[in-house]
């Protein structure tokens, strides 16, 4: 068996809230293979967000080990984590988090700016990423001029632009209507089919059905790890179009 992309062993996170410690994550051990499409599920307070923050190198674990593509991540300092986020991870958020003043192109370029890429290289990579998400004709629009679905596509293009090892999506359909949500899920499935590892957090079972594996969290523990045949978002979308 090849090395898994993500290998997590006994990962724990404790928050200090006032006098007492809150165990947000309680010794998680899991592996995620290269090219997987994983949904992280659980009610609020289950620890799924903490898990995502740790996978995304936004936070430091209190205990345990995290290996990303064979490289130990725990113990790295803030600047080293920033570099890993920049080069190896693409983030997609529920609220898109685009810079309202900047064009779609400039938004997509942002991770490359922090990588120190030259202007021309940034331009062409950002254009390519926007073409991948189907927005080649929207490069000079600003977020307020774009629909919610289009904004999320720009955000996905931004996640793709540095050619990361995985995409971490936090409730990516949460702010979208169900049809647009389907479109975004179809896009993720297409990217996954192209070899991209996708980990998404959701509390909706229908959304999780598009992944091939579901990790269920409850009270800081991984309670169920389920692999199933995913629904096809593109097919569902086509059915809805036909019905309408």
């Amino acid at each position, binding site marked *: 068996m090849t090395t898994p992309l993500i290998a997590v062993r006994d990962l724990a996170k404790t928050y200090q809230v006032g006098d007492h410690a809150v165990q947000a994550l309680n010794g998680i051990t899991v592996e995620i293979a290269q090219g997987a499409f994983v949904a992280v599920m659980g009610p609020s307070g289950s620890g799924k967000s903490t898990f995502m*923050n740790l996978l995304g190198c936004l936070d430091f674990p209190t205990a345990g080990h995290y290996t990303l593509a064979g490289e130990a991540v725990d113990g790295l300092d803030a600047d080293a984590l920033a570099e890993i986020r920049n080069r190896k991870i693409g*983030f997609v958020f529920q609220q898109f988090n685009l810079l309202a003043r*900047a064009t779609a192109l400039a938004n997509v370029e*942002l*991770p490359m700016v922090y990588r120190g890429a030259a202007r021309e290289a940034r331009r062409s990579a950002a254009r390519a990423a926007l073409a991948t998400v189907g927005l080649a004709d929207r490069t000079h629009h600003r977020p307020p001029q774009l629909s919610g679905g289009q904004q999320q596509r720009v955000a996905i293009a931004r996640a793709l632009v540095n050619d990361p090892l995985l995409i971490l999506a936090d409730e990516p359909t949460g702010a979208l209507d169900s049809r647009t949500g389907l479109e975004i899920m179809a896009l993720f499935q297409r990217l996954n089919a192209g070899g991209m590892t996708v980990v998404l957090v959701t509390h909706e079972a229908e959304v999780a059905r598009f992944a091939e594996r579901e990790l269920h969290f409850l009270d800081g523990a991984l309670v169920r790890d389920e692999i199933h045949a995913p629904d096809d978002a593109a097919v569902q979308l086509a059915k809805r179009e036909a019905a309408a």
Partner: protein
Amino acid sequence: MSTLEAMRLAVSALRANLMRSILTMLGIFIGVAAVISTVAVGSGARSVVIEQIRSLGTNLIIVVSGATRVRGVRRAAGSHMSLTEDDARALKLEIPAIQAAAPYLRGTVQIIQGNQNWSAVAYGVDNDYFVAREWVITRGRGFTEGEIRGAGKVALLGQTVVENLFAGDNPIGQTIRVRKVPLTVIGVLARKGQNNWGRDQDDVLLVPISSAKRRVIGWARANPKAIPVVIIKVRDGADMAGTVDQIRQVLRQRHRLRTDQDDDFSIRNLTEIMQRRDASSKALALLLAAVAAVSLVVGGIGIMNIMLVSVTERTREIGLRMAVGARRRDILIQFLIEATTLALVGGIAGVLLGVGAAYAIAEFAGWPTLIQTDSILLAVGVSAAIGVFFGFYPARRAAQLDPIEALRRE
């Protein structure tokens, strides 16, 4: 992220809130403009004083006759002609620090030339006077020793007199009349401008001291050698106060004054008086600049305030930037450059306004102003420093944000 990139980013962030950015710059803008214009006014005033010192001549001491008692009543300085031309000669001989000792007398005279007439101040002088006053003759020649001793009927004219009597004609060789005495104009003096009392120093007529006594001003005194004033130039680098003491000793000795007797002359150190004026104008300029500098600090606090607001408003943006790979240093530099840009743009605009104001003050109020390049460079440097100093705290706050918290912020 490169610095250029960060600067471009800062400019676009500031333009996004254009009105707010302009209002924030206003503090620095006004502060710098105030500093530049007050320093210009201050150094303008100083330059006038310095010019006056220069036109008067440097290292000057004036010895005035008199200050004596006549039957118990004290008389004004100069009322008693206690000094003589011999005193002046003796001072120059006995005190090595003295470069020139020029006795002179003065009176207002009416000058007639053809059908023109003009009132000017006549000075009876010897050739030391030109050394002491650092006054040169631009056209013609100076007095010969023979003319000075033998009451030569010759005169040197100041520029104002030339303008009023000759209106463009060459005065050299022409004859003017003073008190019916015909005098040949042998030269014209360099322009000196106004002195520090506002008197026109070019409205003068210079004649040999002997001519002044016998013919032009009139000096029917018991002692034909008596003179009211000696102007003394001390050599560069010599001790002025020490020279004053030496002058006093020599004159007391020559006048045979007992130790219990007062001086029958008074000594004024002109340079010292002017330097005191210069020092006070310097102090005033410094005070003005200090007051103006306070507004710079106020401007800096304004920048800090707005930067704090901006950091709070853009918390999510900061979180996002961190998520996509910005290091803390990148965020710090971004906000520092933003604050510095605010201060610098305000500062540069302030320099322009300050320079304009200095010109306007010179033009409309008629005050002399002097814009100094180093004060401009200093103002620009100080505004940049203010940006860095007052921008640091907000920028550090931005850089210390926790990316998870920042992303969650509404």
